[in-house]
């Protein structure tokens, strides 16, 4: 693979991941949000595979493929079950309305690009050039986590955040570090499973997935 094709592909995949993150702020249907998360997970994992191919490392490719299955199939399926079980299908009223969220996302992405300039200038490798996008995904994910009300939407925000971290890690280390990737992936899967149980309990208790219900103490 030629260097410029490699750099273009890297940019394209990271770009897809970032656009998917922005789109999750725009869509209201919870199912659509989960699907976007799957697309993003696939793009982030594909970056790992791409770097693995570039490094000619079979271990990295296998690990990144494992991450692909986890991020693009397993976690979204678990989340889809949460959404289908729940009584609500839409994120009707986020704390910050959709237009303002999008503008905030633009702002956060600018901040990400501005603050990572020093990191980018450390090296002129194509991987370094994409790090700001990973950082931007982290911030957008964090924003989604902070401003959405429904449990599945917040979960997606958390996973966007995690995908961003994974992307930055893969790019900064120029390859998947096996121990770390395995550990983090399993942690995330565990967290999602625990939160699935939690949301199921919430649904039973309150008949709703709105996390604001958790503000009051009850016996």
């Amino acid at each position, binding site marked *: 693979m030629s260097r410029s094709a490699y750099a273009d592909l890297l940019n394209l995949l990271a770009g897809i991941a970032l656009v998917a993150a922005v789109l999750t702020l*725009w869509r209201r249907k919870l199912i659509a949000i989960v699907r976007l998360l799957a697309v993003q997970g696939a793009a982030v994992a594909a970056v790992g595979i791409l770097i693995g191919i570039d490094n000619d490392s079979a271990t990295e490719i296998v690990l990144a493929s494992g991450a692909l299955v986890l991020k693009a199939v397993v976690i979204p399926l678990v989340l889809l079950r949460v959404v289908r079980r729940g009584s609500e299908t839409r994120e009707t009223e986020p704390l910050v309305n*959709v237009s303002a969220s999008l503008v905030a996302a633009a702002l956060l*992405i600018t901040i990400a690009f501005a603050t990572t300039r020093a990191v980018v200038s450390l090296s002129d490798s194509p991987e370094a050039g994409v790090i700001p996008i990973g950082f931007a995904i982290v911030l957008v994910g964090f924003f989604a986590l902070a401003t959405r009300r429904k449990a599945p939407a917040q979960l997606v925000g958390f996973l966007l955040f995690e995908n961003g971290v994974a992307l930055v890690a893969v790019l900064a280390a120029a390859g998947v570090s096996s121990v770390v990737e395995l550990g983090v992936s399993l942690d995330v899967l565990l967290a999602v499973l625990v939160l699935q149980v939690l949301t199921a309990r919430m649904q039973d208790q309150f008949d709703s997935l709105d996390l604001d219900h958790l503000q009051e103490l009850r016996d």
Partner: protein
Amino acid sequence: MNTTRALVPILQLLLVFVGGPLIVGVIRKVRARLEGRVGAPIHQPLRDLRKLFAKERIAPEHASWVFVIAPAVLMTSAAVTAVLVPMVSTVSPFAQVSDLVTITALLLLGTVALALGALDPGTAFGGMGASREMTIAALTEPTLLLSVAAISILTGTTNLPGAINEIIDRPGSVSSIGYVLALVALGIATLAESTRLPVDNPNTHLELTMVHEAMVLEYAGPDLALVETGSSMRLVIFLGLLANLLVPWGIATGSGVAELAVGTLTFGLKIGVLAVALSVFEVFTAKVRLFRVPELLALSLVLSFLGVITSVVHP
């Protein structure tokens, strides 16, 4: 050589003037067919225009000169843009002044003129339509400008023929996610500016939803014909701009007769394909609620903004 060069603007003007209503006809026909109707013939919009131009001019009682000149301004701005935007060939006597920012401004001029014309007679519908149109325009114009900025950064020029030549010569310069984002944003802005679904339904006269139709409600006869022609010309200009930025190949880079013929044919083909794609898209799309239109446009604004940012850091 020089005479055919001078022919380019005239050719483009004619193409847009006659092609506009025809494209509207094609879109309606494809839509009708997909919905299981026979539909009016493709040249029906041209017939409608002939009928409208033959009618007597009539203006509302309290309308001032603003109402009268608005259609002319819309039409003229569309005509000037049609001359400036490279559609058939990148060589033209006006290539020097064919600037992306100028074109955006000219297109906005038409939008504002029509909104003022709609406000002038003081009817409820006109005012409502104008206010909606301005809400939409206030969000689409920054989108257009930002996408244009992204394209200019990548190609190194705000001159449109120059940018298209650059893309043809070095496709590598725009093979970036920034360019894709800018084009997607430009596409959404195009739908909004040319008043198509999902922002505005061109076929409706339901007061809850109409935007463009509410604005032109007071116009009749030749004035309405001017407005309709101007709008269809704008549609072709937007589609042409999008088509030539998306796939510039096929546009004439010289001004020989044969080159111009090929350029005209490929341009017709590109516009035709885009128009059919647009109508298929419209069949499967519902109009977005008016209150959600700003969300859609905010998305296009953010996408164009991302386009600019990623273009700036693109090596």
